[in-house]
């Protein structure tokens, strides 16, 4: 087997942490290699080093046996190393073509900053690239109009346009639904057939076992295990990552109490078309559906991000008007939003400042003068509870790994002690062990008498945690299914989520 990329003794320190600690790494030609490990294990940092985004403190890199030193991502591109980062980085205001050829525009004649670009050429090439990965949108679509999965396809096209030997994909599936993941895997397998190596990062064990040829495990900045697909099992993999056994999906007995939240006939634009349901104390109400089914929008109406055009909301039997998140918070509602970078975190502020933000009014003196001690105490408590990996609580949130940032968002809302908690994709980008912890925590919140709503695109999560499941399709509820004995199946949910039940009924 030919080695396309080889790295030796890569070391990278940040203030307070050794992110990558003397790691050797190799990618063979045409293989699908999974890079796995807990949140903060150093996967993204290693990838950034191998693709020229960061420079290592020490260590060397070889491409096709030739020693290289990447000063920038462009250097890496030119050697055939492409990357799709954990956080997508497309220019939303530009079209698909413009993004694919950003900074490598095709020009007529010699290429200078002011040469005329050849739009036809770029259009036809993009079209070609899109068709090789079976994407079904036009090159001139604005990127802001695309779904997350489609944006990812654009990133893949962008990578392919550079004729790469290796494509690194850092958690490409964390924001995708099952069918989108299937489509992505098809693309990945196709790339492999064309001799391109893929390095794939994911926290979902099933995905790793399905797609990989080889698996490298990292823990605390070190490479701790390497295995071929045929030798890997779920238990072995998890043990290598976490260093111990993990208990999944705890069974907690629930006995739903009084109705704490009732929603009647909510309507908003063409995204929410008359939604009604109730939530009881002590239950976890799962929300399943495809992307665009209107689940997130419904929750935004309840949390006051948008105002419903029609419909009523009752809390503990009393009709309420919720005009802003502030109103919702006063009514003891908390929302853990789906997009941590945009909605969940103020990246420029510290871990502590983010965690205490919604609780400030309660822990400040006279309700307006900050109490630094109380803030630190609260933040420390939740940093420990959720095992947020940060050298100190005053670390700027931007410097934390993706999964640890997600934990800050969780900490922020768990610490408010709300009666009603709405989780929108709570375990996106979270490692297996912590995911199990969070699942346990969600069940405990319900047992302690809170009402919990959980939107998730991961059906196992929905099936294992929810007492009842609301299925939405195109802005409507197509079914509310009982799952108190965990008797529901994926098929049943998918049937309703694809709107088929609706068609039968009409």
């Amino acid at each position, binding site marked *: 087997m030919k080695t396309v990329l080889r790295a030796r003794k890569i070391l990278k320190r940040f203030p*307070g942490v050794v992110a990558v600690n003397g790691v050797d790494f190799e990618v063979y030609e045409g293989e699908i290699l999974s890079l796995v490990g807990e949140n903060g294990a150093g996967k993204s940092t290693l990838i950034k080093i191998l693709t020229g985004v960061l420079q290592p403190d020490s260590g060397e890199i070889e491409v096709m046996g030739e020693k290289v030193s990447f000063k920038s991502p462009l250097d890496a591109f030119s050697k055939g190393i492409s990357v799709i980062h954990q956080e997508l980085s497309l220019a939303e205001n530009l079209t698909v073509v413009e993004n694919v050829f950003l900074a490598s525009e095709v020009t007529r004649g010699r290429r200078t900053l002011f040469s005329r670009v050849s739009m036809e050429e770029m259009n036809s090439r993009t079209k070609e690239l899109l068709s090789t990965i079976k994407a079904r949108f036009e090159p001139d679509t604005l990127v802001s109009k695309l779904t997350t999965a489609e944006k990812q396809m654009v990133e893949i096209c962008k990578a392919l346009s550079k004729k790469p030997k290796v494509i690194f994909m850092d958690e490409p599936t964390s924001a995708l639904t099952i069918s989108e993941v299937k489509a992505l895997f098809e693309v990945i397998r196709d790339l492999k057939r064309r001799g391109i190596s893929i390095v794939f990062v994911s926290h979902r064990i099933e995905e790793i076992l399905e797609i990989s040829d080889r698996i490298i495990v990292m823990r605390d900045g070190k490479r701790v295990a390497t295995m071929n697909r045929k030798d890997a099992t779920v238990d072995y993999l998890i043990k290598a990552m976490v260093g111990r056994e993990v208990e999944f999906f705890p069974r907690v007995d629930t006995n739903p109490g009084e109705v704490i939240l009732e929603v009647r006939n909510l309507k908003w634009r063409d995204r929410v078309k008359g939604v009604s349901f109730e939530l009881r104390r002590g239950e976890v109400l799962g929300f399943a559906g495809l992307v665009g089914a209107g689940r997130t929008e419904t929750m935004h109406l309840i949390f006051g*991000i948008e105002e419903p055009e029609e419909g009523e909301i009752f809390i503990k039997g009393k009709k309420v008007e919720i005009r*802003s*998140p*502030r109103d*919702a*918070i006063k009514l003891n509602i908390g*929302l853990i*939003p789906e997009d941590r970078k*945009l*909605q*969940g*975190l*103020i*990246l*420029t*502020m*510290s871990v502590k*400042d983010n965690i205490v*933000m*919604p609780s*400030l*009014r309660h822990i*400040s003196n006279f*309700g*307006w*003068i*900050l109490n630094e001690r109380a803030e630190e105490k609260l933040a*420390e408590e939740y*940093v*420990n509870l959720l*095992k*947020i*990996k*940060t*050298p*100190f*609580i*005053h*670390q700027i949130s931007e410097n934390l790994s993706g999964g640890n940032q997600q934990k800050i968002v969780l900490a*922020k809302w768990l610490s408010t002690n709300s009666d009603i908690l709405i989780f929108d994709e709570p375990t996106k980008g979270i490692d297996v062990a912590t995911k199990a912890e969070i699942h346990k925590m969600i069940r405990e919140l319900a047992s302690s008498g809170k009402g919990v709503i959980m939107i998730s695109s991961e059906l196992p999560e929905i099936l294992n945690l929810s007492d009842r499941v609301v299925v939405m399709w195109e802005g409507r509820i197509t079914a509310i299914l009982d799952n108190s004995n965990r008797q529901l199946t994926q098929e049943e949910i998918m049937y309703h989520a694809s709107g088929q039940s609706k068609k039968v009924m009409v």
Partner: protein
Amino acid sequence: MFRKKENSHRSFKELGPIIAFLSLAAFTAVLNPRFLTPFNLQTLGRQIAIFGILAIGETFVIMAGGGAIDLSPGSMIALTGVMAAWLMTHGVPVSVSALLILAFSIGVGVWHGFFVTRLEVPAFIVTLGTLTIARGMSAVITRGWPIIGLPSSFLKLDQGSIIGIPIPVWILVLLGLIMDFFLRKTIFGKHLRAVGGNETAARFSGVNVNRVRMITFMISGFMAGIAGLIVAARLSQGQPGVGSMYELYAIASAVIGGTSLTGGEGSVLGSIVGASIISLLWNALVMLNVSTYWHNVVIGMVIVVAVTLDVLRKRIRG
């Protein structure tokens, strides 16, 4: 896994500008010993007070991010001064006039805030409007001539001093302490940073974004009103032409003092130090007998250099 490292996050950001200020002062004092005379230091202090007060207000507005900026303070100095002079020369008691002026300038802040938060007009445009309108109104009220004959009790606001330190400096110190407290020790201050850092996330956390923005404009308006009163007392008249370009010096002071133009970052002490540097430059140019024609050229260049150095410093620290 979790170690506590207290205070390691608090680097003293204002240190660079403070050193710059002290070196420039030492340099000037060596070349012209008259720099250190009480008279000159008092003059310098009065100038710092004006720019400092404006810079604090500007810092609050800019920190809210989203391109927020207040271009009105310079013209507002003229308008509030003229209005104060008009009131006082028409028999309204000094204290009542001052209160009316401050209420009016806060009102102008509310006006800016209303356009920015409710109608979503860019702050740049709304306050640019006020820049022109306020200047124009000052001319309308005075018909182009200064209003003279202000009561001597009012003039003390600028010309008086306590233990040798001019009253405007005391005002700056007092306002500085209050505003610093607001910015660093209250929920409002934290919310302001949050809005400047990521407006959407702030809203999702329950921050009343519009109210925060509104308050910043009110503070800036109030600060312009205070500065207007002091300037009127300094000139002993209501002058329609005074204060032109002061808004730009205020913005420059804020930025030199570490305020990020993209929002979320800034400090009161920093703005005061920034204002001190710019005021000192004026003073030094006079002390060093540089021809007045060159003043603007030098100050412009210093602003660019100072801010560039600061950007480089931040980039190195990462």
